[in-house]
């Protein structure tokens, strides 16, 4: 069991303005080029250079010996469900889940009710999120009602604080609309985040189309449902010069499409979600609805290609695609169950256990993919421990293990495909703007 983290809501120090230092941690920060045992100083919610010895004497101290000190993760793809689906998640509970997972900034998708397709809706999220413990960055819809027909008022949405545009789990079907969106959004330097799925090719599909779907008698979602749209969207981005981000890519061919597009200089970036880096369609033999995600879990060869793409930088970011679902939405026939997995609280430990600890990804690259790069793509602060950056950072204990128990989640929903799995390492402290928003005992030593 993961020890019960105490969210103190308090401060490392007795006041935000007070000088503080995290001592003797292993600092990994590609943005400032640090990868060393050292100290991290901050004051007034910002990282600062080491002060003079005189001044340093009065600082309050957090001992980080044996811990990694990392910039807080920035998660580009979450569903926080507010407004409209508060029974699954609220901005408050989603932010608490983020803090527990070491995520200090979350971008939330506009597939709420109503959709985040106008400025008041975006401002509502901004205002509601002002009191929550992590930064929340709303993603606004590309088209009104996410219906794929009429562009949203992108300029006003940008002013209201939208960091990107996306119709969430709906592909913009009409290429002429997507072309205009890519062109128009250039004025505001906003990326269009694309979920690549041709609905006519995926219609009725429940899992990856392959030998396991054939065996289980479940209708398949072929890889080409993603790949044809990824290819189309990349060509449109190349043609328009617009910024395109492909989210939760799931197939080897898509990775190849992104790789070659980047070589041609197309302004395209991509992310992958932890389940797609770890699990395959073979696991669905149990008809476990917690393994039903969109896009579906693919094959071992796809997992290998995604890992390779993540390691070589073809895939810029890891995003949780945190999609809370209620118990009733999952505990039903496989074909009726809603797709999606909660992921904020397991993301870092899954990546550590499956990729970093086995040596497939360095800590430096992991921080790039989970903090520096997503922050850069969204154009937000954070993703850096350089002097002047916000004091958004986490302490991660690399030793010990914990067992994923959905009952202990801070998220309102426990729909994780990793329940019962033993993960390595854990977040022991999350700090946002100099304030401790999550603190937890060390994971049990193994």
């Amino acid at each position, binding site marked *: 069991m993961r020890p019960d983290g105490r969210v103190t809501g308090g401060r490392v120090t007795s006041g935000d303005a007070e000088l503080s230092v995290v001592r003797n941690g292993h600092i990994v920060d590609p943005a400032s080029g640090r990868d060393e045992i050292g100290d991290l100083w901050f004051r007034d919610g910002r990282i600062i250079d080491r002060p003079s010895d005189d001044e340093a004497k009065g600082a309050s101290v957090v001992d980080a010996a044996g811990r990694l000190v990392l910039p807080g993760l920035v998660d580009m793809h979450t569903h926080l469900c507010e407004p409209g689906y508060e029974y699954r998640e609220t901005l408050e509970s989603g932010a608490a889940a983020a803090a527990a997972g070491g995520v200090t900034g979350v971008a939330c998708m506009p597939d709420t009710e109503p959709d985040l397709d106008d400025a008041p809706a975006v401002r509502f999220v901004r205002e509601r999120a002002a009191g929550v413990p992590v930064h929340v960055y709303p993603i606004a819809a590309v088209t009104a009602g996410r219906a794929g027909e009429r562009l949203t008022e992108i300029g006003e949405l940008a002013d209201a604080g939208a960091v990107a545009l996306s119709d969430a789990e709906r592909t913009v079907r009409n290429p002429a609309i997507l072309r205009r969106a890519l062109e128009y959004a250039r004025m505001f330097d906003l990326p269009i985040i694309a979920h690549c799925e041709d609905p006519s090719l995926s219609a009725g599909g429940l899992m990856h189309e392959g*030998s396991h779907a054939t*065996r289980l008698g*479940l209708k398949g979602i072929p890889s080409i449902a993603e790949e044809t749209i990824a290819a189309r969207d990349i060509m449109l981005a190349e043609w328009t010069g617009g910024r395109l981000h492909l989210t939760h890519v799931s197939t080897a061919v898509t990775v190849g499409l992104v790789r070659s597009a980047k070589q041609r200089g197309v302004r395209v970036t991509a992310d992958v979600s932890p389940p797609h880096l770890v699990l395959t369609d073979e696991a669905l033999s149990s*008809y476990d609805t917690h393994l039903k995600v969109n896009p579906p879990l693919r094959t071992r060869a796809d997992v290998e290609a995604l890992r390779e793409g993540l390691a070589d930088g073809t895939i810029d970011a890891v995003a949780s695609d945190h999609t809370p679902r209620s118990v009733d939405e999952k*505990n039903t*026939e496989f074909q*009726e169950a809603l797709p999606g997995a909660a992921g904020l609280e397991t993301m870092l430990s899954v990546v550590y256990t499956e990729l970093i600890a086995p040596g497939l990804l360095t800590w430096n690259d992991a921080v790039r993919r989970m903090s520096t790069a997503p922050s850069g793509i969204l154009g937000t602060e954070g993703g850096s421990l350089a002097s002047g950056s916000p004091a958004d950072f986490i302490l991660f204990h690399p030793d010990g293990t914990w067992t994923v128990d959905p009952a202990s989640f801070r998220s309102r929903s426990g729909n994780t495909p990793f329940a019962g799995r033993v993960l390595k390492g854990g977040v022991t402290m999350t700090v946002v703007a100099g304030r401790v928003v999550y603190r937890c005992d060390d994971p049990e030593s193994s």
Partner: protein
Amino acid sequence: MDEARLHALRHRHLIGLEDFSREEIRLILDTADSFKEVIRRPIRKVPALRGKNVVNLFFESSTRTRLSFELAEKQLSADTLNFASTGSSVSKGETLGDTARNIEAMQVDCVVVRHSAAGVPFFLSQCLSNAVVINAGDGAHEHPTQGLLDLLTMRDALGDLEGLKVALIGDVAHSRVARSNIWGLQKMGAKVAVCGPPTLIPVDIEAMGVEACHRLEDALRDADVVYALRIQLERQQEAFFPSQREYTRLFGIDPERLELARPGAIVMHPGPINRGVELDSRVADSGRSVILDQVTNGVAVRMAVLYLLNGGGERDAA
């Protein structure tokens, strides 16, 4: 070959033939043989399941499978209840989990379930701690009692199943009958070829151990069993094939084509037949056809399954 004989099944539920061993399948077929004798008696009733209750939960419409199960249950003296409702749990307004818990609360001994969604019998078997679950067809996944009755029919007509070549023709993609036959036949040592247009042969079917082809002639050559699957005419609308006429031209079994099969080859079909589409009436009504034997054997096989899963024989310690 000297094989260990079982006296009871190792499994508590019958979800699919994928999980069942050759020995378990043989035990069911042998038990069905002895029930065939019961069926031939003037009074077709044995007290094997007296005092047991069986619920037939049919979430998808069915005539022959439901009648066949009900007859099997009654001939074993079980108390039977029927529940029929179409549609998903969502449209019914009660979750499948609640349905399962209600069944459990009624102290039901055995549940026979048919559902349009693959995986529902497995789901129920996970929810129910006491009742036995028998899959009467789930989506395109499995229809194990159909597979078993097909095996029994082939064994009756052709003897040992080892080495037989069975050609499954038609819509394999949407067919639970095909999947149960593929598992069952291969466990018993038969070879299976599937044949249909590429649109109706699911991807990577070869991973299940079968050969796939798209020319009827290739599938029929040397076949001991020609098994025509039912084609759903609605599939035309989803562009799986252009027209019924073209389907029949390419994959319909007529007397001339049947000549390609082995002399003495039998013709099977799970029913109901689209006469003149997948099967020419001259074939369906010929001496080669064992289609009605399949129906008769269905009752015997279901009696055997009900009997063995509800305490018949001794439950194997393993």
